[in-house]
């Protein structure tokens, strides 16, 4: 019987190829978005799962004691280095504890012999216990002794291959230069560990043991902060453990305070007590100390993809039931021949399952095709077949498959198996055509979503264009930002290179901003302003626009002492005609220093458009030497500055042979800021495309259905003289009403959502009308096209057949 039913199913699919393709394709589309999301979730869940032993590894967290704008409690992953020692002597459950220095800078320079220096990210300094806590597999060397001696380093296999083209590197040495001007530490390679195949919270390319992490600062007032990880023999009860940690930590604090002659109660008068706790390594990725965790971030995406899958299932149900009329006779005959309802139900469920399997395979192919683009787009490394969690994925897919089979197959199967044999065998299919109202609602629903998406894309596109073209208040082309401080000698040399117009530095550059505030007194009012220190040429380098007054210049002696330039936002706070006026600033020894305003510039954007330009005062100061800004701005007088860059690099190498030169153009920095926004827009576009296609499938299903239901009516009308166009129009009209209703519903919905999104930008467009109109036109046009396709078929068919058939 199974064989025969399979034959019927296949022959039916082949007979109705278009339906089969639409039905299966639609389901595959809905599944694709869902599977991609599953892969992403699996990837995020796979953090720190590369070894079973990691279950017993804990990260130590300290309660964040500084001010946070939202006043929430935060637990930072950086702890006082002394904590490691306290834990060691007070928490015997931990068999091994390691301290890792926080990562800083853009990477360290690795200098092998006389070779060119190479910038390597994530070379972390730890104490000798690192590999006692983290069970990395050693390809070369031995985990017990690898980091025992100071000035040793263990490389990841990938780094060893990158640097030496081999993993046979034990005993080789290099110099690690951590910042410009660092004389460097000689390190000897004592081990190579395997790269792991699932993501890690503690990312590294190499672990060095310089010895810096072996001791805590001697002065009790000084602290060194780093990450601390501890490993136990077995899984611990964290509540109990954390109670103990808290007590131990408070005791330590009290003791430390009394050594520093501080009063514990006074320091913690605000009730914010010091805190210490341990969390499992597995939960580290899910609980970033300050940022939003990934589940929160992708919640809307999960919502949308689940929703799209549901829509595709609904379409499947709609198409299957619409088509079930063709199977009515089969059901009738089988029932007469003695088939039970249950047998028929099983048969049709299996048919849905078969289609589900095909859809699933299609979606896997689609996923495989989309993954590279998806990875690029969302900056992740997902894979399907190569995935470590292939088994998990397959079991999840099996679950999804069973679920969609039941959801998509049950209703059509129920309808079909419920046919009354007496009526269907007489050619009366009435009960196959029930539920038209419900289907209308579903189509409206789908179109509401699609129209909302189209409007959203339109508005986002317009906002993107606005941001790309917006006057930033400075000229972002022909400027590069060199990652170094203002070193007089170096600056003098590159200023002499032809084509270099200005060289300067500032504490505020695009993509690299840290704001410090200053309180001034102007006409008796205290006003808080953002303070930016610049060198003499910085504002000229950026190419800011002067609204009134002038920029800093060497010609004015006082410019290095007490001249300031304000931006427009600050000027608006202070009043009018400010150039030439002065304000007061209370110095640390309570003296009032007077500053004269020499110019006002147009606001310039040094951050994304989601942030307002702060009211800012610019002041010249000496930013060389220890006041390292790590921003050296160079403006060229030509767009084609590659040759000039080479000359700069030559100068760099002669001065700093141990550290590679790093730079980015301000143009790139600006694009980088827009990147996240662009990614979001692209994701919305992806979902829109899927959503719109699914809605069209839904409409196609419904129009097929209606055309079929009205076959007799169409035939009678034709016999009475209706033209084909009249018939097509008649069928179109009912759908146009649905689409218009959907548009009316989606306008306010889209308005609210898009408004909220736009509100996230400090600089934004006014809510445009155009996307709303365009979305309506598009939705109506595609609806008419889809329905006409189906209606034409019904209209041109020979009425005699239809009438005879009835």
């Amino acid at each position, binding site marked *: 019987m199974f064989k025969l039913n399979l034959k019927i199913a296949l022959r039916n699919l082949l007979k109705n190829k278009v339906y089969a393709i639409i039905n299966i394709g639609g389901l595959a589309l809905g599944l694709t978005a869902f599977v991609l999301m599953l892969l992403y979730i699996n990837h995020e869940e796979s953090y720190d799962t590369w070894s079973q032993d990691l279950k017993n590894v804990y990260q130590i967290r300290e309660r964040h004691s500084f001010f946070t704008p939202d006043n929430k409690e935060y637990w930072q992953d950086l702890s006082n280095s002394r904590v490691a020692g306290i834990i060691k002597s007070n928490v015997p459950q931990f068999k091994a504890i390691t301290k890792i220095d926080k990562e800083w800078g853009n990477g360290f320079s690795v200098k092998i012999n006389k070779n060119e220096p190479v910038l390597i990210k994530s070379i972390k300094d730890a104490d000798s216990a690192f590999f006692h806590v983290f069970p990395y597999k050693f390809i070369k060397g031995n985990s017990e002794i690898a980091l025992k001696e100071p000035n040793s380093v263990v490389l990841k296999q990938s780094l060893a291959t990158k640097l030496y083209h081999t993993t046979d590197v034990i005993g080789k040495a290099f110099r690690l230069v951590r910042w410009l001007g660092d004389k460097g530490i000689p390190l000897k390679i004592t081990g190579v560990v395997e790269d792991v195949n699932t993501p890690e919270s503690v990312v590294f390319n190499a672990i060095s043991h310089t010895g810096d992490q072996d001791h805590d600062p001697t002065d009790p007032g000084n602290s060194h902060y780093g990450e601390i990880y501890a490993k136990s023999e077995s899984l611990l009860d964290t509540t109990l453990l954390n109670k103990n940690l808290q007590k131990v930590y408070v005791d330590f604090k009290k003791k430390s305070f009394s050594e520093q002659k501080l009063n514990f109660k006074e320091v913690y008068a605000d009730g914010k007590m010091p805190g210490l706790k341990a969390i499992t390594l597995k939960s580290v990725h899910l609980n970033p100390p300050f940022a939003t965790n990934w589940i929160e971030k992708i919640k809307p995406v999960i919502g949308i993809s689940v929703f799209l899958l549901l829509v595709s299932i609904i379409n499947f149900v709609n198409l299957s039931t619409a088509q079930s009329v063709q199977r009515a006779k089969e059901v009738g*005959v089988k029932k*007469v*021949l*003695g088939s039970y309802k249950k047998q028929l139900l099983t048969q049709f469920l299996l048919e849905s399952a078969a289609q589900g399997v095909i859809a699933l395979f299609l979606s896997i192919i689609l996923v495989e095709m989309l993954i590279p683009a998806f990875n690029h787009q969302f900056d992740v490394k997902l894979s399907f077949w190569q995935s470590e969690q292939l088994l998990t994925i397959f079991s999840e897919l099996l679950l999804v498959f069973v679920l969609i089979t039941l959801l998509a197959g049950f209703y059509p199967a129920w309808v079909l198996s419920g046919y009354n044999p007496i009526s269907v065998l007489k050619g009366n299919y009435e009960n196959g055509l029930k539920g038209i109202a419900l289907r209308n609602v579903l189509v409206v629903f789908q179109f509401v979503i699609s129209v909302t998406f189209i409007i959203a894309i339109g508005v986002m596109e317009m906002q993107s264009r606005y941001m790309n073209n917006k006057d930033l208040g400075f000229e972002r082309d022909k400027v590069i930002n060199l990652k170094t401080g203002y070193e007089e000698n170096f600056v003098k040399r590159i200023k002499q290179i032809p084509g270099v117009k200005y060289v300067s530095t500032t504490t505020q550059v695009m993509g690299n901003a840290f704001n410090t505030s200053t309180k001034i007194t102007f006409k008796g009012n205290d006003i808080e302003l953002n303070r930016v220190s610049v060198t003499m040429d910085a504002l000229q380098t950026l190419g800011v626009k002067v609204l009134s007054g002038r920029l800093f210049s060497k010609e004015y002696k006082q410019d290095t002492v007490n001249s300031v330039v304000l931006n427009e936002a600050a000027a608006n706070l202070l009043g009018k005609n400010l150039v030439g006026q002065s304000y007061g600033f209370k110095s640390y020894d309570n003296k009032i220093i007077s500053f004269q305003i020499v110019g006002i510039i147009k606001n310039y954007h040094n951050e994304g458009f989601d942030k307002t330009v702060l009211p800012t005062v610019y002041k010249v100061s000496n930013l060389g030497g220890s006041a390292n800004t790590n921003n050296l701005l160079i403006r060229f007088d030509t767009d084609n500055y590659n040759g000039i860059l080479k000359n700069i690099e030559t100068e760099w190498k002669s001065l700093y042979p141990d550290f590679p030169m790093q730079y980015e153009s301000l143009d790139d920095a600006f694009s980088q800021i827009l990147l996240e926004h662009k990614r979001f827009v692209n994701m919305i576009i992806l979902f829109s495309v899927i959503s719109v296609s699914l809605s069209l499938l839904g409409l196609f299903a419904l129009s097929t259905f209606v055309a079929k239901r009205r076959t007799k009516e169409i035939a009678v009308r034709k016999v009475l003289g209706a033209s084909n166009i009249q018939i097509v129009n008649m069928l179109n009209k009912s759908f146009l009403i649905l689409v218009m209703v959907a548009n009316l519903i989606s306008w306010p919905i889209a308005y609210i959502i898009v408004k909220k999104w736009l509100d996230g930008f400090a600089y934004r467009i006014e809510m445009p009308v155009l996307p709303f109109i365009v979305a309506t036109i598009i939705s109506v046009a595609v609806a008419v096209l889809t329905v006409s396709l189906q209606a034409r078929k019904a209209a041109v068919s020979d009425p005699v057949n239809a009438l005879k058939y009835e």
Partner: protein
Amino acid sequence: MIKIENLEKVYKTEEVETTALNGINLYVKEGEFVSIMGPSGCGKSTLLNVMGLLDKPESGSYKFIDTELLTLNDRERSNFRKRNMGFVFQNFNLIDELTVFENIELPLIYNKVPTGERKKLVNEIIERMNIVNRSGHFPQQLSGGQQQRVAVARALVTKPKLVLADEPTGNLDSSHGNEVMELLCELNETGTTIVMVTHSSHDASFSNRIINLKDGHVISEKINKSRNEELI
């Protein structure tokens, strides 16, 4: 073999109640060929559906060799139907997606006949029906007469005790119609009981007994002498 007493069937819609069967009493002897005739709407198809266990009457009794059938549940009805009855329809009702062979095989599958025997039975009947060279064809590839032969073959392949035919010649031209009627007669001669609903007195003339229905009543019953004599 069949004894029907006081059968009542009422169709209800929102506005009207139609009495399709109004106290029908009927018997059919084993080996008999009975025709049911009457004007449109007289209840003859309803009666056939009730006899085929496709429809449930409101009240009455329907005994098939001493078994009361009206008290059976759906599953028991299906089981009884597939073991004891065969159907022939006016519009053939073959499954379009199945070949001639597969269509005929279907009731055997429902009766859980083993594969080997199934093949044998189907081949036998195909031969008997003279449609051997059509066994791999799909219904649409056959003429109406051939389709009805397949339908008859399908009704007979399980060797049912009772064959119910609903206007079996209604969609056929007269020569094909005659062919089918002769087929039914042959079948009857080998002992199968047949109940046939028909409009055509020509077709009815092939049967032993003709029952006339009107407004849900049996209004007359006629023994077909010529056919009975023929048999003797």
